[in-house]
């Protein structure tokens, strides 16, 4: 497929959707294990890996597919200050979950818009 159709948008949004759905799993596991002894909360690292791509965009360059080569959402143990002494805080997890669900819907809107632009191009601008 050509660059225009198989655009980097599709792969970036696909990766972000993967990250959001993996994050949903991590938050579900945190909530399910809220009362378990010795449980270490989980988080998903993804946005930090996009630093290179963001810098390239800031310099006015184009986002290319090879910048995304090593980017993959990963589950990690969350040892930050938001988890208080290794305990899961239900309210924080619920807030994160709501935010994640909204972000997921926004990503899907973006992907749908991208496809509708392509479809408009395919149909000579006709709806």
């Amino acid at each position, binding site marked *: 497929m050509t660059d225009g159709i198989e655009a980097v948008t599709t792969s970036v949004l696909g990766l972000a959707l993967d990250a959001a759905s993996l994050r949903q799993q991590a938050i579900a596991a945190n909530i399910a294990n809220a009362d378990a*002894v010795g449980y270490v909360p989980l988080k998903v690292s993804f946005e930090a890996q996009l630093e290179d791509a963001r810098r390239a965009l800031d310099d006015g360059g184009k986002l290319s597919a090879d910048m995304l080569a090593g980017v993959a959402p990963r589950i990690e143990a969350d040892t930050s200050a938001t988890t208080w002494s290794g305990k899961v805080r239900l309210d924080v997890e619920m807030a994160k979950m709501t935010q994640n669900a909204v972000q997921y819907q926004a990503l899907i809107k973006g992907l749908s818009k991208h496809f509708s632009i392509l479809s408009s191009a395919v149909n000579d601008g006709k709806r």
Partner: protein
Amino acid sequence: MDYSQSFAISAAGMDAERTRVDVAALNLANANTVQTPDGLRYRPLTVLARSAPVAFSNQVEQGLNSAMLTLPQTLVEAAAVEPRSVYEPGNPLANSKGFVMYPGVDVATEMVNMMSAQRSYEANIAAMNATRTMALKALDIGG
């Protein structure tokens, strides 16, 4: 990405919380039980929740990425609490000094445990609903 895992995680969480409610209800129901059918004293139960990894075969399928995901596992054990002795000389189950040993069920603690389990159960349901919304939204791509 596979959604069934998120549902399984939330289901395991609900299972653990239901066990806590069950045990609290059992303790409250037996608060005034002097003897169990085997002639022993009723001992209040307590729930130990630990997180254990998902079954190994599933891990191989999912790859290393989700190897860190663990599910809560509950263990019900008898709590080491002193019995509550009440002076009832007329009771046929009283000892030589006239005391009847009731189980040391702490009603306030049981109620608090039950409320906290109930709230956690609701949180698990909310997580499951969010997963469902996301899974259904994914079907809207391109539509």
